[in-house]
């Protein structure tokens, strides 16, 4: 069934069987539920000897906070990380896919992955989908050509720049970066700058919030600090916690399935139902 594999490969691994039905539903006036987006503020800063990337941790679905502490810094290779904004599912799956793709190539060629390799592969994948794969990434890493930082837009455009910010909070973060960035920062200065930029995004942008994650990549490896700053910790704890009495909620029937014996019984009745 080689031809079937080739055919599926050419479709990029996506299954389009529900598309017609969904379009008909939309034409009838139904509205879709919003996808989980990472409203987000993400930044990248180049310093002397490496690159620092930072992100906030809020994921939203419409105006509800879907995840208070999600991870937006993804590993693509031991020396290359990606920070992602956009549709959360696309980010997660595309980064996982590229991680695997790069690993296979490293195993085949026995060479370290390069940043420009990631950019080329990524933009080649995104462009044919005309921006429908909603990933806006900042790619940062260190390879044989030194530390590099680039940003990739959902349509497949890329830009190399010593500092980047993306996401709904990017303008807030860019203000901090434009004011305080200089060439030749040290690692700690770059980390502090990145955290400050994310902070601006967290407080000024509604789509970003919760905590800050930071990763500093140098030729010695990647130093990942999850939740290095926490701004939204729960400050109120109920003095007297709710303690529900056991078996208080009235039940009509209650069944019990014993896993070892593989037996279903009705609790409180003499009758035994064995499946």
């Amino acid at each position, binding site marked *: 069934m080689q031809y079937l594999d080739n055919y599926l490969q050419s479709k990029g691994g*996506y299954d389009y069987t*529900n598309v017609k039905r969904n379009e008909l539903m939309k034409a009838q006036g139904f509205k879709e539920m919003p996808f989980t987006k990472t409203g987000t503020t993400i930044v990248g800063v180049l310093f002397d000897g490496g690159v620092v990337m930072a992100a906030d941790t809020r994921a939203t679905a419409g105006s509800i906070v879907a995840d208070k502490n999600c991870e937006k810094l993804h590993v693509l290779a031991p020396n290359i990380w990606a920070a992602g904004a956009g549709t959360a*599912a696309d980010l997660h*799956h595309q980064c996982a896919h590229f991680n695997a793709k790069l690993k296979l190539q490293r195993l085949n060629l026995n060479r370290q992955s390069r940043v420009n390799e990631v950019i080329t592969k990524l933009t080649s994948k995104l462009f044919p989908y005309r921006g429908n794969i909603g990933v806006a990434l900042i790619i940062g890493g260190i390879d044989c050509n030194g530390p590099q930082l680039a940003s990739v837009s959902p349509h497949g455009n890329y830009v190399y720049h010593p500092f980047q910010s993306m996401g709904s909070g990017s303008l807030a973060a860019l203000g901090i970066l434009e004011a305080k960035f200089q060439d030749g920062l040290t690692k700690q200065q770059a980390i502090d700058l990145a955290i400050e930029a994310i902070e601006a995004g967290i407080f000024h942008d509604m789509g970003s919030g919760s905590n800050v994650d930071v990763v500093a990549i140098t030729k010695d490896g990647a130093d990942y600090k999850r939740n290095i700053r926490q701004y939204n910790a729960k400050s109120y704890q109920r003095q007297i916690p709710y303690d529900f009495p056991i078996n208080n*909620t009235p039940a009509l029937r*209650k069944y019990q*399935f014993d*896993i070892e014996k593989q037996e279903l019984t009705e609790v409180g009745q003499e009758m035994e139902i064995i499946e």
Partner: protein
Amino acid sequence: MSGIFEYNGGSIVGMKGKNCIAMACDRRFGQQMSTITTNYQKVFKIQDNILLALSGLNTDIHTFYALMEKEINLYNLKENRKMKPTTFANLVASALYERRFGPFFVTPIVAGLENGKPILATYDSIGCKSDLDDFQVGGTGGNYIYGACEAFFKPDMSPEELEEVIGQSLVSGCDRDALSGWGGVVYVLTEQKLTVKILKTKQT
């Protein structure tokens, strides 16, 4: 015409406890404002240690459940072993993402016990897995249940306590949602047994 996810109604919630997990759902199946039946199953036992709860468009609930049953049965036959809950959680994410441009209108919650450790994951309709919180909700009444969960939840509860807390959260949330309710079912899974409790709720 409201959203596709509001057409049938329904709410689900999952919670972690100490070496146990609980899942609860309402029982209503409606078509916008009419109620068709009050015994629709939304939580499915995929394996002895994995539960799958689905909310959203009921036809897609049924189709997606059938798809997952097929996957796990094929897995059992091919690999001759049970599937781990974390593997199943990733399988659900991939199955949803495969239909990225023509999605199933479901928001699943997967709950399981792996070596006694509770696993809980929720997804949006295209497969963004979120497995860091101790409780997850889904469905039209989800946002109201969020509020109840934030108030009632405590970490590391025993199975009996967890059963009470999840039942109360579900009922409190569904009381505020017109499209959910008409009964509740609570599933509590431990290493030894699975208990199923059908709750007596307001009949509206």
